[in-house]
């Protein structure tokens, strides 16, 4: 029987700032797609990825209204990946650094995103096959 692996990712970038965020989410998707359990520790600006009050907007440059623009929101990406995990028999655990949340005022996270601390990051890393840090530059 194959061993079930768990991967931990540590993310730092705030949403809408860097191509690394999209890459990170694609890596999460790929891992879940293969049935890996995935932990994410969102640190610093990355805690805003799961902020529930993110909102789509129209884009006058594109000449599109809100619905037409259908602007990506990272909170929706997380929810989508959590749903995807369930279809793959995998688990996506999302933990936000609580102090980072407080200093940014983004305490209202989507359902499933938990509040935690660096101790949780360490615990998740210990319980994983490996950990990938994707830092801000």
């Amino acid at each position, binding site marked *: 029987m194959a061993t079930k692996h768990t991967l931990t990712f*540590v993310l730092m970038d705030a949403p809408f700032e860097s191509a690394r965020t999209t890459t990170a989410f694609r890596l999460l998707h790929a891992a879940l797609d293969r049935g890996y359990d995935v932990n994410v520790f969102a*640190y*610093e600006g990355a805690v805003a990825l799961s902020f529930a009050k993110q909102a789509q907007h129209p884009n006058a440059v594109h000449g599109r209204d809100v619905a037409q623009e259908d602007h990506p929101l990272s909170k929706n990406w997380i929810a989508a990946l959590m749903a995807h995990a369930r279809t793959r028999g995998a688990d996506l655990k999302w933990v936000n650094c609580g102090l980072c949340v407080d200093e940014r005022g983004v305490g209202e996270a989507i359902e499933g995103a938990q509040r935690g601390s660096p101790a949780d*990051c*360490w615990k998740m*890393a*210990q319980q994983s096959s490996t950990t990938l*840090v994707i830092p*801000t530059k």
Partner: protein
Amino acid sequence: MKVRQIVETAYRATTEEQDDTVIWISHAMRGASAELGVLLTGNAVNYVAGEQDGSGLMLGAWRQTQPPAPAQDLAALMRKDVPVYCVREDLAERGLMECKLLEGIVLMSRNQLPRLFGEYDQVWRW
């Protein structure tokens, strides 16, 4: 499990955070019994310049009362038995070898890094 933390980018929001966020999380994880080591490379070697002073920021009537002090934070980390290494060539390139360096820092050459990494289960490059 032992983890080597590599810090390469210096002064990343240190004024807003009043510390380096990777040094900070190392302190926090050490408090959770993590076995860690820190390697400073690139611009982050500037953290071992012992006489740096980040105080004095004023914006209008606002004055920073707790400025960042990365050298002191590193010293505190070493007191918690977290070894801190620094790449000698990166110090030399920046003319910092003549500075008063933080006591307890271990200087090493780039060609010694593979052996150092081999002493750890994981390497986290921030």
